[in-house]
C-alpha cells in the first residue's frame, strides 16, 4: 500500500472522532501515524500494511469509545460535574443517536469476530468485487469523467462537423477555421493548434522538445495565464511579426534553471531567434496533445480556400452567459452565411458545425471499453453481494435462536434489522478497505496492460471522487446484502422460529433460490460478453493478411551518425545495406519500402488518365525497391514487378493491387493504363511523381495495410528511386529468411550503419501482427478475467446454498431414507434444488446477454452480439459448473445415515 493511500484513509477515519478532539489533535495524530508508518515500512510491506490496519483500528475503536463516553458524560448523574471535557460546546441532540449507532457497530464487530472464518470469507469475496469495481471507476473517472484541466471547463468545447456518423469530424480546413473565428459571436475565444517537435537552443546544444504552434487566442481558450510574462497578443501570429515564444514550465526549469529573468531573453527555436514572452504555470495541461507543452510558439494559419486539407482541430471558449443551445444556433447562422458566400467550398458530407466534448472526439472506442469493463465489474460485485447475502442468510438461520431470544426479550423488529444492517455495513466497510488496496493493484495492472497510451492516464489515482465512490459502493453493497439477510426478519420469520426449530425447512428456500438464479443470470451475461470478445480476437487472428507473417523481419533504416550525406545519401545507404543483407546465409529476399504492412502509411489522391471526374478519395501509397513482393510474399497476379531498371531516369511505372484494379478497371484491362498519382480532380496537389502519368505494369494481391480488421484498401506501389526527393523518407528494410539467427545478424548490420547514434529495433512480422491485436487481446483478457471471477464466485455460491440446504434438511432426508426412499430420488431432488434456479437464471441471463452485448457491439468483429454459438457454449459451461457445484453436496446428502440424523438434538 502506498503512503498517500494509507494517509488518506487515515484522514478519512479521523472524521469518525468527535469534532472537538479531531480539531484539536487531528493533525498531530496524522503526523504521528505517518511516523509510525515510516518506522514500520523499514520492516517491509507486510509490516506497513499491518501498521496501517492497526492505526485505522485504533481510530475506529477510539471513535466508538469516545462516542459512548460522551453519552455517559452527557447523561445527568452524579459524575456529570465534568460537563464539558474538551472545552467546546457539545451537540446534545445528535450524540445519543451516534452513540447508539456506535453501540450497534461495536456489538456487530463482536458478533463478526466470533465467527472469523465467515467474516474473512465474506470480506474477501466483497473485497474482490469492490476492488475491481473501484479500480475501473478510478480509471473511468480519471480518463472519461474528470473535467478538462481548464478553468470553467464547462465553457470549453471543440467545434466539429456533424457528418451523420457517431463521432463528429474533429478537423477542418484552415479556411473554415478562419471563417468561423471571424464570424461567430457566441465565443470568447477560438483557437487551433498543431503539435510538433521543435529543436530548442544553439545548433550544437539544441534538443528536441514537444511544442504547440498555436493561434494567439490559445491561452484565452484554455483559460490559463502564464506564470511569468504575458500571453500571446493579437499581433503575435500575423505574418512578419517578431518571433516570440512561451516556455513550458518543465523546459524553463530544466534547460533555463528556472531563471526568473528569462522573459525578454532570446532563445533559438529551429535555429531562429525567438524572444521569450512568458512561462507557463507548472500545472498547465493540454490533454489534446499532452506531450507537447514544453513550448508554445505562434501559429500563422494560412486560410487558403484552395487548401482543403482537413488538418485543424478547433477549440473554443463560450462567451460568459452563452449556453450551448445559443452557441449552436450561432454556429448554424455562420454556416448559412458560409453556404451563401462560398457555395463552391461546400462538401456533401458536412451537415452542421456542432459543439463536441473532448471525450467524444479523442477517446473514441476507449470510452466503450472502459464503460463495458466497469459494467462488468459492477456485475461481479453484484454476484459477490449475492454470495455474501446467501452466506448471511444461512448464518441468519443458524442464529435464529439468538435472534428469537432477543425478540422475546423485547428487542423490536427494527432494532434487530438495525443490528443486522450494522453487521453488513461493517463487513462492507472492511471489504472496502481491503478493496481499495486491491484496486491499486488492479489499476496498475490495467494501465500496464492497456495497449498504446491511455489518454490522461496520469490523472488516474485515488482521489476524492474515487474515495467517495468507494464509500458509496461499500454502503450500497452493505445495504443490498444486508437487506437480503434482513428480509426473513421483516417477514416475521424469526419470531416463529422458536417454534420451528425442531422442524426442517425454514421458508427461506425461495429467497435462496432467487439468489442462485440471479447469480447464474449475471454470470451468463458476463461470460457471453467475454466469449464474444474472445471470439472477436480469434476471428481477427484468423484473417489472411495477404503477406507472409512468418520468416519476415522488418526494421527502419537508421540514420548514420553523420547524417545521410556523410554516407553518400539515403538511397546509397539503402542499397548498400540491402546488398549486405542479401549476402547473408539464410536470407532469401531483401527489399526496402516506405513502410511495412499494418503500420500507418501515406495516402494520396490518384486519378486515372483521361477520367478527370472519376475520383473516389485517396488511395494507399507505398514506395518500394525491387524484391518487395518476394520479401513479403505478396502474389504477383499479372504483369511484372519492379526491377533495377525502374530507376530515376526510366519511364515511371507503378503496381496496383487487386482492389484498385477491380474498382477502376472492372474489365480487367489494367496493364499499360496510365494513372496520375497526386492528382485531385483536375489539379496535381501532391506532385510525388512525374505529372505526365505513370504506367501500370503489374497487379498484385491485396494486403491488409491498415489493420487486420480493415478491408484491403486500393493501393498503388511505385519504385522508390522514381519518387521525388521531397517525398522520399527514410525507408524500412524487409528481410525474408529461412531458419534462425538472421535476426541478430540483421541487427548487427543496421547497428553498423547507426554507429550507436540511433537505436536499432528489428521486429518480425509475427510481432507486428501480434501488436496490431493488442486492443482485442486487452478487451478479451480483462473481460475474461472478470467473467472467470464471476464464474468462480457463482460456483461457490451454488455450492454454499445447496450444501446449506442439505444440512438443513438432514433430518427430513434421514426420515425419508428411513422410510425407504431410494438414494436416486433423494439425489434427483437435491440436484433439482440447485439446478432448477440455475436453469431459470440461464434463461433470464440469455435475455440479459442479448440486451447487454449491444453495448459492446462496437468492440466486436466478425461475430454478432447475439451469436448463438457463444451463447450456447456459455450456457453449457455454466450448467456444467453448476452441476459440479451441486453434485458435491448431493453426494453428501445421499450419504446421510438415518440413524444418526434422527437422533434427538
Amino acid at each position: 500500500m502506498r503512503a498517500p493511500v494509507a494517509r488518506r484513509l487515515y484522514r478519512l477515519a479521523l472524521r469518525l472522532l468527535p469534532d472537538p478532539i479531531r480539531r484539536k489533535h487531528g493533525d498531530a495524530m496524522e503526523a504521528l501515524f505517518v511516523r509510525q508508518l515510516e518506522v514500520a515500512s523499514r520492516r517491509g510491506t507486510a509490516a506497513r500494511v499491518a501498521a496501517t490496519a492497526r492505526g485505522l483500528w485504533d481510530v475506529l475503536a477510539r471513535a466508538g469509545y469516545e462516542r459512548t463516553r460522551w453519552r455517559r458524560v452527557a447523561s445527568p448523574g452524579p459524575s456529570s460535574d465534568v460537563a464539558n471535557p474538551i472545552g467546546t460546546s457539545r451537540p446534545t441532540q445528535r450524540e445519543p443517536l451516534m452513540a447508539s449507532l456506535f453501540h450497534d457497530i461495536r456489538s456487530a464487530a463482536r458478533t463478526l469476530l466470533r465467527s472469523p472464518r465467515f467474516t474473512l470469507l465474506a470480506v474477501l469475496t466483497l473485497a474482490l468485487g469492490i476492488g475491481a469495481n473501484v479500480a475501473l471507476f478510478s480509471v473511468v473517472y480519471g480518463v472519461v469523467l474528470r473535467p478538462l484541466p481548464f478553468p470553467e471547463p464547462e465553457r470549453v468545447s471543440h467545434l466539429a462537423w456533424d457528418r451523420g456518423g457517431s463521432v463528429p469530424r474533429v478537423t477542418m480546413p484552415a479556411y473554415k477555421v478562419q471563417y468561423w473565428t471571424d464570424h461567430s459571436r457566441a465565443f470568447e475565444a477560438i483557437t487551433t493548434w498543431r503539435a510538433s517537435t521543435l529543436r530548442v537552443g544553439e545548433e550544437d546544444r539544441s534538443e528536441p522538445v514537444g511544442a504547440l504552434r498555436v493561434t494567439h487566442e490559445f491561452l484565452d481558450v484554455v483559460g490559463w495565464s502564464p506564470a511569468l510574462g504575458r500571453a500571446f497578443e493579437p499581433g503575435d501570429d500575423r505574418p512578419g511579426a517578431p518571433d516570440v515564444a512561451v516556455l513550458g514550465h518543465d523546459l524553463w526549469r530544466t534547460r533555463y534553471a528556472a531563471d526568473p529573468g528569462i522573459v525578454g531573453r532570446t532563445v533559438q527555436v529551429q535555429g531562429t531567434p525567438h524572444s521569450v514572452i512568458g512561462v507557463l504555470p507548472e500545472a498547465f495541461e493540454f490533454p489534446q496533445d499532452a506531450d507537447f507543452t514544453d513550448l508554445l510558439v505562434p501559429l500563422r494559419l494560412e486560410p487558403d480556400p484552395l487548401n482543403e486539407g482537413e488538418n485543424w482541430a478547433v477549440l473554443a471558449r463560450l462567451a460568459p452567459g452563452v449556453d450551448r443551445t445559443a452557441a449552436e444556433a450561432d454556429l448554424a447562422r455562420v454556416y448559412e452565411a458560409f453556404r451563401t458566400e462560398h457555395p463552391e467550398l461546400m462538401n456533401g458530407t458536412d451537415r452542421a458545425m456542432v459543439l463536441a466534448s473532448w471525450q467524444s472526439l479523442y477517446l473514441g472506442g476507449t470510452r466503450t471499453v472502459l464503460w463495458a469493463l466497469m459494467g462488468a465489474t459492477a456485475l461481479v460485485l453484484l454476484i459477490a453481494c449475492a454470495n455474501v447475502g446467501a452466506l448471511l442468510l444461512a448464518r441468519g438461520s443458524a442464529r435464529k435462536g439468538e435472534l428469537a431470544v432477543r425478540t422475546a426479550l423485547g428487542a423490536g423488529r427494527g432494532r434487530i434489522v438495525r443490528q443486522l444492517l450494522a453487521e453488513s455495513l461493517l463487513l462492507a466497510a472492511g471489504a472496502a478497505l481491503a478493496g481499495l488496496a486491491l484496486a491499486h493493484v488492479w489499476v496498475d495492472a490495467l494501465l500496464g496492460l492497456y495497449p498504446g497510451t491511455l489518454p490522461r492516464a496520469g490523472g488516474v489515482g485515488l482521489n476524492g471522487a474515487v474515495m467517495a465512490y468507494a464509500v458509496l459502493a461499500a454502503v450500497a453493497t452493505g445495504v443490498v446484502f444486508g437487506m437480503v439477510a434482513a428480509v426473513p426478519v421483516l417477514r416475521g420469520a424469526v419470531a416463529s422460529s422458536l417454534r420451528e426449530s425442531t422442524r426442517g425447512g425454514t421458508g427461506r428456500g425461495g429467497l435462496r433460490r432467487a439468489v442462485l438464479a440471479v447469480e447464474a443470470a449475471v454470470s451468463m451475461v458476463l461470460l457471453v460478453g467475454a466469449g464474444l470478445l474472445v471470439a472477436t480476437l480469434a476471428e481477427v487472428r484468423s484473417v489472411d493478411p495477404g503477406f507472409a507473417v512468418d520468416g519476415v523481419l522488418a526494421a527502419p533504416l537508421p540514420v548514420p551518425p553523420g547524417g545521410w550525406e556523410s554516407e553518400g545519401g539515403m538511397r546509397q545507404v539503402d542499397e548498400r545495406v540491402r546488398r549486405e543483407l542479401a549476402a547473408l546465409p539464410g536470407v532469401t529476399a531483401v527489399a526496402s519500402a516506405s513502410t511495412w504492412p499494418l503500420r500507418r502509411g501515406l495516402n494520396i489522391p490518384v486519378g486515372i488518365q483521361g477520367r478527370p471526374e472519376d475520383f473516389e478519395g485517396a488511395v494507399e501509397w507505398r514506395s518500394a525497391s525491387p524484391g518487395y513482393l518476394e520479401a513479403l510474399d505478396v502474389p504477383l497476379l499479372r504483369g511484372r514487378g519492379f526491377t533495377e531498371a525502374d530507376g530515376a531516369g526510366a519511364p515511371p511505372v507503378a503496381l496496383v493491387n487487386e482492389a484498385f484494379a477491380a474498382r477502376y478497371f472492372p474489365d480487367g484491362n489494367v496493364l499499360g493504363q496510365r494513372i496520375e498519382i497526386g492528382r485531385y480532380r483536375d489539379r496535381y496537389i501532391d506532385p510525388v511523381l512525374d505529372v505526365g502519368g505513370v504506367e501500370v505494369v503489374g497487379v498484385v494481391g491485396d494486403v491488409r495495410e491498415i489493420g487486420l480488421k480493415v478491408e484491403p484498401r486500393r493501393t498503388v506501389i511505385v519504385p522508390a528511386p522514381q519518387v521525388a526527393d521531397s517525398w522520399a523518407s527514410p525507408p524500412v528494410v524487409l528481410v525474408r529468411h529461412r531458419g534462425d539467427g538472421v535476426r541478430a545478424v540483421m541487427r548487427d548490420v543496421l547497428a553498423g550503419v547507426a554507429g550507436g547514434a540511433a537505436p536499432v529495433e528489428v521486429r518480425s512480422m509475427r510481432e507486428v501482427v501480434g501488436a496490431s491485436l493488442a486492443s482485442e487481446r486487452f478487451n478479451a483478457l480483462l473481460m475474461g478475467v472478470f467473467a472467470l471471477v464471476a464464474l468462480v464466485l457463482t460456483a461457490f455460491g451454488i455450492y454454499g446454498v445447496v450444501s446449506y440446504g442439505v444440512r438443513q434438511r438432514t433430518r427430513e432426508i434421514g426420515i425419508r431414507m428411513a422410510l425407504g426412499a431410494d438414494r436416486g430420488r433423494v439425489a434427483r431432488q437435491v440436484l433439482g434444488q440447485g439446478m432448477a434456479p440455475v436453469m431459470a437464471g440461464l434463461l433470464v441471463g440469455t435475455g440479459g446477454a442479448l440486451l447487454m452485448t449491444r453495448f459492446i457491439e462496437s468492440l466486436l468483429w466478425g461475430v454478432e452480439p447475439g451469436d448463438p454459438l457463444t451463447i450456447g457454449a456459455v450456457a453449457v459451461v455454466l450448467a456444467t459448473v453448476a452441476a459440479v457445484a451441486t453434485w458435491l453436496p448431493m453426494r453428501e446428502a445421499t450419504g446421510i445415515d438415518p440413524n444418526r440424523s434422527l437422533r434427538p438434538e
Partner: protein
Amino acid sequence: MRKPWFYILLSLAGGDRYGSDIQEDVRTLSDGGVRLWPATLYGSLEELVERGWIRELEEAEQPDNAAGRTRYYRILPGGREALAAEVERREAVTRVARRRLGEERP
C-alpha cells in the same frame, strides 16, 4: 487503571513532554511492548486532563525549542497520587505473584 493512562503518567512523571515524545518514551519504558497509537494517545491525554491528573502547558511555559503548535503536558499532584496508587497496587499483585511462584517466602 487503563494501561495507556498508566504509561502516560509514568512518562510525564519524568518531566514535561509532548505527544509523539510520550509515545516514544513509553515504547522505551515498556521495552517496546506498549505502543500507543495516535487516537488512543491523544484521546487518553484528553481524559487525563479532564480528570485533573495532568494539564496542558501554556505557550509561555513551553521549552524554548518547542515548535509552535506542539502541546506539552505536565503531570499534576493528582496524577502523581493516582500513579503512586497504581504502582502500589501493581506491587501488591507482583508480591502475590512472586509468592505463588515460590520465589519469596512469606
